[in-house]
């Protein structure tokens, strides 16, 4: 083996291990007709050198292709292997994300239905989303994004024996994170992604160990492995609250540069009967959701203590404003969710139960 490849192999150790682990999955989950990356058709365009175009192609591939992959997820010094199966069939998206190592958690999406299996809590969350959100909803790279990120293409390189475009998305301020993406030349699938802070330090990484693009993925691939006997099922089957003559409309008085509200909806969350306002803010790449719900009576007399939390590199911040609990969640630095949540203010306006901006 050439010496240079030896180092590549060295650093891809987890990938090799992950690939082997993936072989342990039951044969029933294997797609009937696999198309390996090597067999995938190439999609060359005249714009292929444009970094933003590669981001669009990547988003397109991630949301419209069938794929079945095993990847390592690194964050905070912890490495875990996960498997993701994604299928678009007759316009319906199905997705299954499962932890292969420890927690046994699984996330399964079937169209507008999102199911989260939490064996550690012996709980299953089932959330029914509006059908119109089943295929769209994520921010799109646009001129606005370019104002707050420096999007460049680095040296093309090989990863896992695949030619990749390395796209670097660097934030221009401290309100957002950046990315380094190794995008497969032929399929536009991101074989490796790094989430970076403003200084370029890696804070989260995903590397595919194996990835196939099957033409067909059977329904059986989207069944959970978790046995749910005795589990508590929490659903949001109740309809969203009906519009009333007047209601409180929550808006952010100020936002970090580049962020704007792109969606607002009223909904109920699994296990809760109370309506929750869900506001979405995005800068074109990063997004922040803000959930607003009336403060529970039993907590009304307690002092409002802001709380912060982290889910991987994503941040959450919760506070109380005007008797309402405000929680912001997003794949942004902690200060950004805190900023946005703290800027929320209610205005009494004619109600619209659900609308997009």
């Amino acid at each position, binding site marked *: 083996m050439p010496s240079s490849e030896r180092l590549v192999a060295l650093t891809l150790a987890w990938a090799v291990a992950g690939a082997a682990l993936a072989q342990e999955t039951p044969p029933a989950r294997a797609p009937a007709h696999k198309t390996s990356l090597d067999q995938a058709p190439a999609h060359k365009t005249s714009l292929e050198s444009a970094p933003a175009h590669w981001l669009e192609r990547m988003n397109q591939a991630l949301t419209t292709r069938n794929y079945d992959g095993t990847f390592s997820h690194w964050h905070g010094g912890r490495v875990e292997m996960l498997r993701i199966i994604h299928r678009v069939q007759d316009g319906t998206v199905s997705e299954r994300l499962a932890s292969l190592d420890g927690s046994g958690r699984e996330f399964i999406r079937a169209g507008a239905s999102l199911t989260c299996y939490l064996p550690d809590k012996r709980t299953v969350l089932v959330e029914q989303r509006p059908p119109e959100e089943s295929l769209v909803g994520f921010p799109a790279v646009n001129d606005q994004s370019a104002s707050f990120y420096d999007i460049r293409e680095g040296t093309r390189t090989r990863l896992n024996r695949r030619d990749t475009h390395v796209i670097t998305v660097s934030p221009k301020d401290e309100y957002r994170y950046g990315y380094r993406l190794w995008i497969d030349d032929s399929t536009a699938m991101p074989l490796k992604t790094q989430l970076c802070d403003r*200084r370029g330090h890696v804070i989260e990484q995903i590397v595919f160990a194996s990835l196939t693009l099957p033409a067909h993925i059977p329904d059986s691939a989207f069944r959970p492995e978790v046995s749910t006997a005795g589990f508590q099922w929490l659903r949001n089957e109740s309809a969203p609250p009906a519009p009333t003559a007047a209601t409180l409309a929550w808006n952010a008085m100020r936002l970090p540069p580049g962020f704007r509200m792109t969606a607002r909806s009223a909904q109920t969350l699994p296990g809760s009967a109370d309506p929750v306002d869900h506001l979405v803010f995005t800068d074109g790449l990063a997004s922040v959701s803000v959930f607003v719900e009336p403060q529970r009576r039993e907590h009304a007399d307690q002092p409002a203590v802001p709380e912060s939390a982290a889910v*991987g590199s994503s941040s959450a911040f919760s506070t109380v404003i005007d008797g309402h609990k405000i929680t912001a969640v997003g794949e942004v630095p902690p200060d950004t969710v805190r900023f946005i949540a703290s800027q929320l203010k209610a205005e009494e306006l004619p109600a619209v139960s659900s609308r997009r901006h």
Partner: protein
Amino acid sequence: MNEELDSQLSAMFDDELAPEQCELLARRLSRDEQLKARWGRYAVIGAAIRSERGVRLNAPLAGRVSAVLLAEPALVTTPGARPTAVRWWQPLAGAAVAAGVAVGCVLWLRAQNPLAGAPLSAHLTAATVSVPSAPVVPAAAAGAAESYVVPRTPAVRAMVPSTELANYVVAHSVFSSPVARRNLLSAFMTSESGTAAEEPPDEPAVHAQ
């Protein structure tokens, strides 16, 4: 680590291990924390040699490490690299120690807080190390800082996700970009488990082997 296992590791690196043996070794990797930590150390060394941003090693030292790695017919082993106790909320950093390279190389570890000064940073956890996996890139040009910089993780609190937070995460994921969404959900899937590792050293952390 015995010679047979070392040989198997080397063969696996070279993609020359039979699939059934590869699977067995992978299984062992999944349950052998010392072996896992070893992979992590090698990955860090690779990252340092590649001089990935945020993971820098001075060029001469990178060259020495590279030379050793390239010259060795099999991976060099270092007995006695025993992990210390781990507090559950503290992330891995021991994997950052290049103990696997038996040439007396010293990797100077220095934790840097990317969000220094931010009010919410008061709860920042200790230094962590990246475990990148990427093709080889030539070592840094002359003049690179003589340090191996390890980013801190901006985790405010490694809290157990409550059902409420799970609801928020799932609801938010619909509006995230595909890559961000995968990161978010992956982190949520793994937020209570994972491969813990050694306790990070105090700043400036210096490990030698």
